[in-house]
């Protein structure tokens, strides 16, 4: 039971990170119906940006306040990654809008390959470690054989995910920008007829998606303390799986899907075999696509024409 509880906490943490990445996928898919396959690599890139600024702040400037360092790193990573997101949309996707459906998808795969190779060239192929930033843990339960702990890192990750989900849900459902996003999703031409600048709305969505990826990337670095140029692919694909599982286009679905994938992967590793944890995760994708293609919280299309 203690073992289960600990694995549950670990699974929720991993799932929160997947959920954060999945939010970016689902938001971009929601507005232009395109799977942004470069999103995983944007996440990896943001991890490196976080790493670089972490080292600058701690080694060069000698800052010691953990909270301050974390906050600055997070904000800088969000801003710089958002710029990348904007640039990628401008260069690789916008010119292809109105082209055939597969074109932006292929372009996204191209961006993905470019980003991982770019980081490999400028940062090297080896794993990049950072010294652990937050070490404290909360002991939840203890007996002679076993201790169940919740580390500060884990608490930060779960809280951040919950807050960002709430924030973005509010943004999409309750603000005029969110309404414009949903209008663009449903009928771009009509949105333009109502004075919505469609290009700007889509651009901003990419910027927000990239900023979310940066939060995930910073938390990933905080949690694992190490990042490599190839770390975009697998978490990216799993987060995509999470988005599909939860119902792509649905923000709560993305986080729910992320949590489920994280939990399944963690339990699979704990009770069966760690080598096959990816098999478990992707098996879910297959099963969901067969039996419930619209996902858990995806909307069934009932419309009067």
């Amino acid at each position: 039971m203690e073992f289960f509880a600990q694995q549950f906490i670990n699974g929720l943490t991993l799932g929160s990170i997947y959920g954060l990445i999945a939010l970016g996928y689902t938001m971009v898919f929601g507005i232009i119906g395109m799977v942004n396959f470069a999103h995983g690599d944007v996440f990896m890139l943001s991890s490196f940006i976080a790493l670089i600024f972490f080292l600058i702040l701690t080694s060069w400037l000698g800052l010691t306040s953990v909270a301050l360092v974390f906050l600055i790193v997070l904000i800088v990573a969000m801003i710089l990654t958002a710029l990348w997101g904007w640039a990628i949309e401008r260069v690789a996707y916008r010119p292809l809008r109105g082209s055939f459906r597969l074109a932006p998808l292929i372009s996204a795969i191209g961006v993905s390959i470019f980003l991982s190779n770019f980081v490999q060239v400028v940062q090297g192929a080896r794993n990049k470690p950072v010294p652990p930033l937050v070490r404290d843990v909360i002991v939840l339960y203890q007996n002679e054989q076993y201790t169940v702990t919740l580390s500060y890192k884990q608490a930060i990750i779960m809280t951040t995910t919950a807050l960002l989900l709430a924030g973005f849900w509010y943004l999409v459902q309750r603000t005029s920008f969110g309404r414009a996003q949903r209008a663009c999703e449903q009928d771009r031409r009509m949105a333009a007829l109502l004075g919505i600048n469609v290009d700007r709305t889509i651009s901003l969505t990419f910027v927000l998606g990239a900023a979310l990826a940066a939060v995930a990337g910073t938390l990933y670095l905080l949690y694992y303390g190490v990042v490599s140029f190839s770390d975009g692919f697998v978490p990216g694909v799993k987060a995509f799986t999470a988005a599909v599982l939860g119902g792509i286009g649905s923000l709560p679905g993305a986080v729910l899907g992320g949590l489920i994938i994280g939990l399944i992967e963690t339990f699979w590793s704990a009770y069966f075999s760690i080598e096959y944890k990816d098999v478990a995760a992707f098996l879910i994708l297959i099963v969901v696509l067969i039996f419930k293609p619209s996902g858990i919280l995806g909307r069934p299309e009932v419309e009067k024409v």
Partner: protein
Amino acid sequence: MSVAGINVLVDETRARMAQADTQAGKAPLLSVRGVSAYYGSIRALKGVDVDVHEGEIVALIGANGAGKSTLMMTIFGQPQAREGTITFAGQDITKLPTHEIARLNLAQSPEGRRIFSRMTVRENLQMGAAVNGGRHFAEDLERMCTLFPRLAERIDQRGGTMSGGEQQMLAIARALMSRPRLLMLDEPSLGLAPLVVKQIFSAVRDLNAREGLTVFIVEQNAYHALKLAHRGYVMVNGAVTMSGTGQALLDDPQVKAAYLEGGSH
């Protein structure tokens, strides 16, 4: 009051009168001049001239595929006119992007209604008010609910679940939410029961009579449209072939033969 003060007043009055003069002096609110538009290599509009003056209801009638809806969309820059000019309120809008044209308070209820089906009625109306940043939203919402009481009943229902007639009312209300200087209606009667058509047309007539709303309406239902309109144009194969007052067109033997015989009297 000093003499200088009075002089200023006189000057202002003169300026205002001059302004009123130019408005009455037949500078049309919307002016389409020699406009041609293409879909690929197909010339869908062939040098169209249309004027809409402030306070008028102008109808454009014609058969299916004559290019009526293309003209409506071309005015909004989708597609952009390849030849000719379109001016609105004295500004050349021929090459403006669609959303900037909409921000000049030109509103359209387009062909096929294009309701945001996964948004509620309220959200659809909020989208309509987007150009004026949601100012006087509550007041305008109230007005729309008085104009179309059915919308008030369904305010929190999703647009996609409503009947065709309700969707058409919503499309018109959404366009009106921006307080447009010109309301463009594309086939508001299409696929609707005669009673609903009557309701919608009388709402448009009311708005024009009471608030001086300028309306440009495209219709296949020629009889109703010409009855409603002050002036009308007839479009055939992408070109305007006839124009005149609504009554003159109704009485014209050619129009009668082509668009009215056996029509909806």
